């Protein structure tokens, strides 16, 4: 009951369209108000920013090594040292971050992140040679980055023109030149290429996806680093602020080129030239989100399935094993991609997240799962940014006064939320802090 002395509340404008009757109506209304799928709470903000930072450090290695493999290792039939990027790639300045960048958008980025270099030197065990760190598996788990790349390669047609281009004559001609140059003076491999050209062509396509993902993450790593810095400076007021930073970042680099260059004996072979016109948003970001956040594959150990009993959809577009649907509890099982990523992030957690995890569930014992769930929350926020960016690009502003436009926005949001109606989706769980 309002006390008699209370001041009258300010009049609230009547909504222009009726409320949604969707199962996720609350989330849709939040998106329509410029929010994220992730509720705006201080803990959520802390969790997602902390995990962005922990993700950015290994990501700084991922993108460098992905480009190293795509550009330098290329078709090496025995790529035993592909996870040992050369110093040149470790020192590679980021194209979009730091003062040295002509396209500077974000801070830092002159070289690999210092925390990454420190971890590469010492690891969990201590100082020893790179090879011993590698064999002891005390290193960044590049296998996770490769699993993401393979998801993109395998799912392929997810918008953009990249996939179609890989079958074009221009691409095949460029790839053919590169293959012949790479195996020049190697009659065995050239003979094999003559016998099985498609096998080699498939390998080059794979390398192109290495480059694609490397260029995608080259953008994302400094974004996440800067978000962490801004949070530490007290810059973000809530989850929507963090989401909007991502939306702005997406638009800032949306048109940057996606290409694949290979360096063979000092000569550059442009397998996918920048002039092909592939852009970061449509040829890398959106396919990545679709392939990795939504689809991926039912990893052994994380999902029990029986393809013969139709427990795995026959249509790849119906796959739903990405982080937005994943059961994070099996994290910790040896060798599976989710465990590899969580283990990578574990090394770079900010102190406030360490403290948070200690206070919940099994504390230090199940930190991998707790940070996995944090990662899930953070990726719902990234997906929200992508949804808002798409809405911004394709539809109408949120403050539009035309009810028809708002209804178009509504239909778009509802269509996006329909993808989370299946029981595996974790959208309902992340609405509360109890899910840890």
């Amino acid at each position, binding site marked *: 009951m309002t006390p008699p002395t209370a001041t009258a509340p300010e009049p609230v404008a009547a909504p222009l369209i009726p409320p949604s009757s969707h199962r996720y109506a609350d989330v849709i209304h939040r998106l329509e108000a410029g929010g994220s799928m992730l509720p705006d709470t201080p803990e959520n903000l802390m969790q997602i920013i902390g995990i962005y930072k922990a993700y950015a450090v290994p990501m700084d290695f991922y993108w460098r090594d992905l480009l190293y493999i795509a550009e330098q290792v290329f078709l090496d039939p025995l790529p035993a040292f592909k996870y040992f990027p050369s110093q040149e790639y470790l020192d590679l300045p980021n194209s979009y971050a730091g003062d040295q960048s002509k396209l500077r958008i974000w801070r830092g980025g002159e070289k690999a992140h210092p925390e990454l270099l420190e971890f590469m030197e010492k690891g969990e065990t201590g100082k020893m040679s790179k090879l011993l760190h590698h064999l002891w598996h005390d290193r960044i788990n590049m296998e996770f980055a490769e699993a993401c790349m393979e998801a993109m390669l395998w799912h392929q047609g997810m918008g953009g023109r990249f996939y179609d281009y890989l079958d074009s004559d221009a691409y095949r001609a460029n790839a053919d030149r590169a293959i012949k140059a790479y195996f020049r003076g190697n009659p065995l491999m050239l003979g094999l290429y003559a016998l099985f050209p498609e096998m080699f062509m498939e390998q080059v396509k794979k390398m192109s996806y290495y480059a694609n993902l490397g260029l995608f993450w080259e953008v994302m790593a400094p974004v996440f680093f800067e978000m962490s810095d801004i949070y530490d400076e007290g810059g973000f007021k809530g989850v929507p602020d963090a989401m909007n930073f991502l939306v702005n970042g997406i638009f800032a680099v949306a048109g940057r080129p996606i290409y694949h260059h290979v360096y063979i004996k000092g000569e550059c072979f442009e397998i996918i030239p920048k002039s092909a016109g592939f852009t970061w948003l449509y040829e890398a970001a959106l396919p990545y989100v679709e392939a990795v956040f939504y689809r991926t594959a039912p990893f052994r150990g994380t999902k*029990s399935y029986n393809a013969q009993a139709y427990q795995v959809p026959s249509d790849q577009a119906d796959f739903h094993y990405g982080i937005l649907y994943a*059961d994070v*509890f*099996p*994290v*910790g099982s040896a060798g599976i991609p989710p465990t590899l990523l969580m283990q990578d992030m574990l090394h770079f957690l900010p102190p406030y997240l360490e403290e948070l995890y200690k206070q919940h*569930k*099994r504390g230090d014992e199940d930190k991998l799962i707790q940070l996995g769930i944090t990662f899930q929350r953070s990726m719902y926020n990234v997906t929200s940014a992508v949804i808002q960016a798409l809405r911004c690009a394709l539809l109408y502003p949120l403050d539009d006064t035309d009810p028809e436009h708002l209804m178009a926005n509504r239909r778009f949001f509802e269509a996006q939320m329909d993808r989370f109606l299946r029981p595996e989706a974790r959208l309902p769980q992340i609405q509360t802090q109890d899910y840890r």
Partner: protein
Amino acid sequence: MPPFTLLFLLIPPLLGVLLVQLVSAERPTLVRALAVVGPAVQLLLALLCWRLPTPALHLSWLPKLGLSFDLALDGLSLPLLLLTALITALAILASPADQSRPRLFHSLLLATNLGVAGAFLARNGLLFLFCFELVLIPTTLLVAIWGGANRASAAIRFIMYGAVSGLTLLAAVLSLGWYGTGGFNLSYASLAASALPPSAQGAILLLLLLAFGLKLPVFPLHGWQPLTYAEAPIPVVMMLGGVVSKLGAYGLLRFGVGFLPDAWTAWSPWIAAAGAISAVYGALNAIAQSDIRRLMAYSSLGHMGLLVLGLSAATPLSLQGAVAQMLAHGMIVALLFACVGLIERKTGTTAIPELSGLMNPLRGLPFTMGMLLLAMMAAAGIPGLAGFPAELLVFEGSWTTFPRATLVSLIASGFTAVYAIRLFNRVGFGRLDNDRADWTSTCWSERAPAMALTLLVIGAGLWPTALTGWSETESTDLAVRSQPFLSSAVPPPETLAASGSTLVAATLPATSELRTS
């Protein structure tokens, strides 16, 4: 060692009962720590008795009733006494840190230990009966007070079966005295020396089979077991399965094979059949269970069947195997229930359909499940673990006498793998329930009893003499009694028990005496 040392074996649990009364019930962990001192000291004393010769103790108690306080240790009773002390200590440690009414709980566990230890030490039929009956009271109270939701019916059923068992044993012991050729003398030496008429032997053996068959239990006398094992607190089930059930096996060996050899030989095909049926019935029922406790109960019933098969054959090898099976089963079943107790304490249930994914490395109970897997493998007779040498000896020793029953039991033993894999597949693997998996992991102090048993199960598997060496002389002697034609063929073996001391058969007649009698 003076004879009174044997008396000291019974004093630690008694002192333990008194000691825990001195501590406030508000400090259950301290009560638990003090309670464990009794069986720990008992274990040390028993080990001392193994290493140093300890003559039998004879104290007159009520001579008119034939009751005397005769205590002795031999290769049959010493290992079982060690097992009793060990399992009691571990059962006490396996009780929860916040045990309700801790003084009474631990006192009753110690009283159970006292009864079982007394029965193994006894060298007088009436004293054995006294101790045998003593066990029933604390165990019933433990089930009735601290049991699960159906504890009342479990306790009633347990005491009813126990009472029938006790009464029939009373009748059997008195009959042994009445029909004895040396007057009403219930000392083991006298009972062993008595030459009872075959008809009397048959009637008494029937009573003994009923009494000890109920205690083991064996099909079809097992009615109390699944419900009791499902309802009793875990430490109590560890005691019941680990040592109390061994009273039945020990009784059959000591009284049936030892004192009624003719009847035993005559009835042994039927006893072997009962063992084989128990093995099959227990294994098949275990496969069908949807609760881990009940599964373990039927598993235990099946393994008791193997033990009975070994006893029925009564060859030196099969009897040695039966004793080894008592020890191995005692450790394995205690380990199984220690693990089940940890699962129940953390998840709040033992219902198989409600559990899955417990092998989950971070949010499950992987350590406990690892020990459970090892225990199930041991129960299935996987080489390198305690169950293997015991079962191998039983099968090898029984094969020549009862090949069909042995074959059936072998197949039943194979079923252990079926329910073990089924249990593990459903409970260990699969998806961990995200909504319910909110329990804490087990700490080292909680794991300690199961870990100790795990080490023993592995140790006994790698060094089987620890199971078989104790009873080599005694089992040979007993087998010779039931199958005299073996006496000339079996040379006196070098045994673990004999190597440690002269504790061998102070009260049982030697082979040479038998030949002359």
